[in-house]
């Protein structure tokens, strides 16, 4: 969490050169300065100087950011745009100026902090309408409750029972102990990805520990500026995993691992330095974990071929920009000699998900997704794989909306030979 003076310093470092315009997915669709980093930073600066109120428009512009960090990566001064926007969102929240999606998000998420109840009215209404199976404390609640409100037509099927409830035991196999962070999508929707992840880790020679008390990673709360909830979740999850005695925490979701390895350590730095250190050093994306821990021979024995197929890999922003992970998935894919990897023309194009963004800016999110799906269609793979649960849902929705008829799945499933065509 940045402090006031750090924000001022960070804002000062933007020279308005405009290179963020070359990469910003939101700017690419809208062509408006208020949508791109240098514009947003100018607005925040004006607000800091007292020349601009936190108006409705100001708030909407702050919400219109995916926090993908493409601009941070592009920026020669590495201005931390993501942190500044998040900080401003927390300001809006503090001042009661947050938008309806963020406040809805925040109210359902607050329930997490004070387990078990206190579900906001809107949240419970949506839950009654739609997702009885998703408890209020899940970040996923947002996507589906708002699916109703925003008339979203595509809703993925929920798993018959959550992954964490299916487990006969929460300790599988033998070897060095790895804690599996399942994440909300892995728990409630894409349980098959969680299964494939467990199997991969076990075949890699690890004992998989899956603490049943783990909760949402808190990215949705953090991104909407709800630092309090994100902190409670960070504290809770880190305690749960430390107690489990695992040496590492691994997740198949790029968003969750960003929260675990980057955001949580920031949130816990002051209050729980041990937990912070543990998370920043020992929590890792599944693909990065496997390639770093295992030699080529072991990796080769671990994977199962799904047979001959043409596959494209979509880089999640949370892996590419937030964690610098883009070689590892390709390295793993190269183990499967029967797979023809067809790279997409633009390896940096976002899927449009952006967590809350796809709720608060539903149309824009679809527009960004449409650009991505058109690039996929041009290359024409049979399988579209990715490494983040947010991207997975978004790409599945895009596949459905544009009638591409692809198999959209997680890389872990591909590596386990489980690609249902």
């Amino acid at each position, binding site marked *: 969490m940045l402090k006031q003076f750090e924000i001022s310093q960070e804002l000062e*470092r933007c020279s308005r050169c*405009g290179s963020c315009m070359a990469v910003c997915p939101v700017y690419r669709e809208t062509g408006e300065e208020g949508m791109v980093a240098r514009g947003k930073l100018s607005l925040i600066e004006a607000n800091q100087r007292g020349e*601009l109120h936190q108006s409705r428009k100001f708030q909407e512009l702050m919400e219109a950011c995916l926090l993908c960090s493409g601009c941070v990566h592009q920026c020669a001064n590495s201005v931390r745009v993501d942190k500044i926007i998040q900080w401003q969102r927390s300001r809006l929240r503090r001042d009661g100026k947050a938008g309806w999606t963020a406040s809805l998000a925040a109210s359902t998420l607050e329930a997490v902090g004070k387990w078990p109840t206190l579900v906001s009215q809107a949240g419970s209404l949506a839950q009654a309408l739609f997702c009885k199976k998703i408890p209020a404390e899940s970040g996923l609640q947002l996507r589906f409750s708002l699916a109703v409100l925003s008339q979203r037509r595509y809703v993925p099927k929920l798993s018959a029972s959550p992954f964490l409830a299916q487990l006969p035991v929460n300790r599988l196999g033998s070897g060095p102990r790895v804690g599996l962070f399942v994440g909300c999508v892995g728990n409630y929707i894409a349980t098959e990805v969680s299964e494939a992840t467990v199997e991969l880790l076990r075949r890699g020679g690890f004992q998989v520990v899956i603490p049943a008390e783990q909760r949402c990673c808190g990215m949705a709360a953090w991104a909407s500026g709800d630092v309090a909830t994100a902190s409670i979740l960070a504290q809770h999850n880190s305690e749960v995993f430390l107690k489990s005695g695992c040496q590492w925490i691994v997740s198949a979701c790029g968003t969750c691992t960003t929260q675990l390895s980057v955001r949580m350590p920031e949130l816990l730095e002051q209050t729980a330095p041990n937990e912070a250190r543990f998370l920043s050093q020992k929590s890792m994306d599944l693909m990065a974990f496997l390639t770093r821990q295992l030699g080529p021979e072991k990796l080769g024995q671990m994977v199962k071929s799904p047979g001959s197929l043409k596959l494209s890999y979509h880089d999640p922003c949370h892996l590419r920009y937030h964690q610098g992970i883009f070689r590892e998935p390709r390295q793993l894919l190269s183990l499967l000699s029967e797979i023809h990897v067809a790279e997409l023309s633009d390896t940096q194009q976002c899927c449009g998900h952006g967590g809350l963004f796809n709720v608060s800016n539903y149309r824009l999110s679809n527009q960004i997704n449409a650009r991505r799906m058109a690039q996929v269609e041009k290359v024409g793979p049979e399988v579209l794989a990715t490494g983040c649960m947010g991207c997975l849902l978004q790409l599945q929705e895009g596949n459905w909306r544009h009638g591409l008829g692809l198999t959209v799945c997680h890389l872990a499933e591909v590596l386990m030979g489980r690609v249902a065509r």
Partner: protein
Amino acid sequence: MLSRETIRELSKIVGRRHCRTDPEDLICYGYDATDLRYNPEAVVFPADVQEIVGIVRLANEIPFYLIPRGAGSGMSGGSLPVRGGVVLGLSRMNRILSIDPENMVAVVEPGVVTGHLQDKLAEQGLFYPPDPASLAFCTIGGNVAECAGGARALKYGVTKDYVIGLEAVLASGELVKTGVQTAKGVVGYDLTKLLVGSEGTLAIITKVVLKLLPQPESRRTLMAVFNRLSEAVETVTKIIKAGLLPSALEFMDQRSIQCVEEYLQIGLPRDAGALLLIEVDGVREGVVRHAEEIRTLCLGQGARQVDVAANEEEAETLWQARRAVSPALFKLNPHKVSEDIAVPRSRIPDIVAKLEEIGERFRLIILCFGHAGDGNVHVNIMLNRNDADEVARTEQAVNEIFQATLALGGTLSGEHGIGITKIPYLGMEIDKLGLEAMRRIKKAFDPRGILNPGKIFLDSD
């Protein structure tokens, strides 16, 4: 001040969504890459030339100021609304109207992003060479208005060498077409060339006809590392003299190298005095031969290491390094004064020596890098604007740099334009009569002075 009635009229022309007066919009359209700020009174986004005609007519009638704007990536303040008025955002006019491979001509709207056009052309084996460092986000309209250059100027020239025709709206609101769609054309005065580089002060450009080339069959990039800057710049003249015409010949001094390396970490030699980035293009056999000849020549000139990029990816990394210089310099100090002087290329060693001397004398961090091949040197003084003494020393230093440049037969700006940042120095290069001729041209085109006021000239000139 714009009246409510005027705003209403503007809204009628472009539609309410595309006429903005919210403070958020005024802030977001009041800056450019100079990092200076002047808020406009309104921002409008016309969809087509008819809407622009309507806007300009209204501006001429009321009157109010009109400031055309591409991507706001200019380096001299050309798109800043220094006197308020209405910013004319051309981002919606971003269509590539036609690409004609038989006649090697493309017709585009001003809001097309230069890099996007180049990508589209490359798909058809065509080539639009001008490559300003900002090509991934700057627009053709802005390039034309400022006559943008780039690394390839040495072999291929700059924007003005590719603009063969224009459609523009005059200050009166009348639509004119200039130039031709053919390789040759000498009918009447060359208004096309007059409008290119006029920084939005003479007319609003609404359509651009560009001459194209075929994509070169092959390219090769080399990096030569020198212990001393003087060795590097002398090598430049040797390369040209040897009849080898690289498509780009760039240099970076020691501090530029260090800044970029700190930012990108791609293994540039931090202890090197200077490096040259050289690109050759053309038919495959010729490229291989020329690259080898240049390599040998560099080594003979004292280069301690010459690397030839093995593939496109390696070459791209090197060019990324070059494009990153300008922004990466902010690591040294929070602000910069950026000049882009040009001297005859044989005088580069002289100007570089002079810059070093000036930097020492005024106790300033002066870095230079840029287009060694065409003599266009980017001089960057890194300073803290809150330090009044440093600001004063910078002003003196800039003055001396310009004097030295002109004494060597050079020019104040190779490719950034005068905008507002170089206004005080215009008189050093252009004499009274020349300035007077320019003022008369401005008066003839824009008698009421509504187009991009406060640019190029000082009021008292």
